[in-house]
């Protein structure tokens, strides 16, 4: 199966009106995936696309309902950033990094089933930051490019967990981040 055929099939699975589990998040993410594809898959390899898009429906279905609204807003915000140009903050910040925005959209899709409310922002370098708010703390995932991210995650009552230059694997949330979020989930439970 060609990349295009496989990709279109994956998106269709998510966006299909016959998908009974479809919800607002599903639709928003499906629209985003279509938009990225239409833009020529900037910043991500076809392998990454295949890996990422073969499972978005399952990801979205698994998203904890309480956090769907925040996820939708964050995704919409990432989308808004795509149109921003140099000096978007009126203080000289460079235009947002399109490849990093693509990767952030995918990372956002994987932040499922965690007790967090993600918010999307930009840092002064135009790199997307996913702010994860939870009782007793606020974590940051800074998506530096289409291939790497940093994170800082204060765990309530414990040390802050952090890591730089984490490789983004579009097939899943980076293992280090999964481990941290699971520890966070255990503390918050």
């Amino acid at each position, binding site marked *: 199966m060609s990349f295009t055929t496989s990709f279109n099939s994956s998106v269709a699975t998510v966006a299909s009106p016959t998908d009974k589990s479809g919800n607002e998040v599903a639709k928003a993410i499906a629209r985003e995936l279509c938009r990225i594809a239409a833009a020529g898959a900037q910043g991500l390899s076809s392998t990454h696309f295949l890996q990422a898009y073969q499972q978005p429906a399952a990801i979205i279905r698994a998203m904890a309902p309480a956090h769907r609204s925040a996820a939708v807003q964050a995704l919409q915000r990432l989308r808004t950033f795509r149109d921003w140009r140099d000096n*978007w903050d*009126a*203080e*000289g910040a460079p235009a947002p990094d399109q490849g990093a925005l693509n990767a952030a959209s995918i990372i956002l899709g994987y932040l499922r089933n965690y007790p967090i409310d993600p918010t999307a*922002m930009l*840092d*002064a*370098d135009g790199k997307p930051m996913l702010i994860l708010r939870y009782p007793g703390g606020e974590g940051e995932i800074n998506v530096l490019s289409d291939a790497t991210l940093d994170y800082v995650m204060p765990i309530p009552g414990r040390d802050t967990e*952090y890591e730089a230059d984490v490789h983004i694997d579009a097939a899943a949330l980076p293992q280090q981040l999964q481990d941290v979020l699971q520890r966070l989930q255990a503390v918050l439970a």
Partner: protein
Amino acid sequence: MSAAGCRQVWSNASHNQKSEALDAAYPNCFCEEWSLVSDAHSPIEPAAKLARILTTPGMYDAGDLVSQKLTSANAGGLSLIRSGASDDEILGTITILVHEAAEPQSLLGAAVFDADLVRAIGRPDRHFGIYHTPDHDKQHHADLLAVPPTGTNSAIRKAKSDRRSDLKAALMPTIIFESDAAALLNELRSQGI
């Protein structure tokens, strides 16, 4: 001459590399001793009053300073107004921040503080410096710049985040909430700006 060297580094560094470039050439906030505009201006003294104009939601949202906005300290600097700025300089800054950002902003107010409040963060180490800097034709412009942390990439990442939190904690109590530009100007004057 160090003043000339500092000014040269500042003018040669790209916008988002000011913090790194200045620290690489003159570590430990050495260039605070001079104006980076010209010898005709004084440097920022420890007791100097400074104001950071704040807009919402870009700089302040949900009852808190937006810490991501503070990442500018690690790049091109957080723009400040120093005391003595003209009405036009202050009102012009407000107009730009409210009307020229990519998404609509409203005036929230300003953080008003002494330079030493920020310079004291992390003592005896230096985590932030404040410099008199050029910004187009503004004569009373300053920049708050972070001192780049050292260590592994992960340690640097954590240090930047921790220091931003410290900066936020220091600035939050200094915020004056005033959404009317003329009224804010009066308030800034009464605070010594």
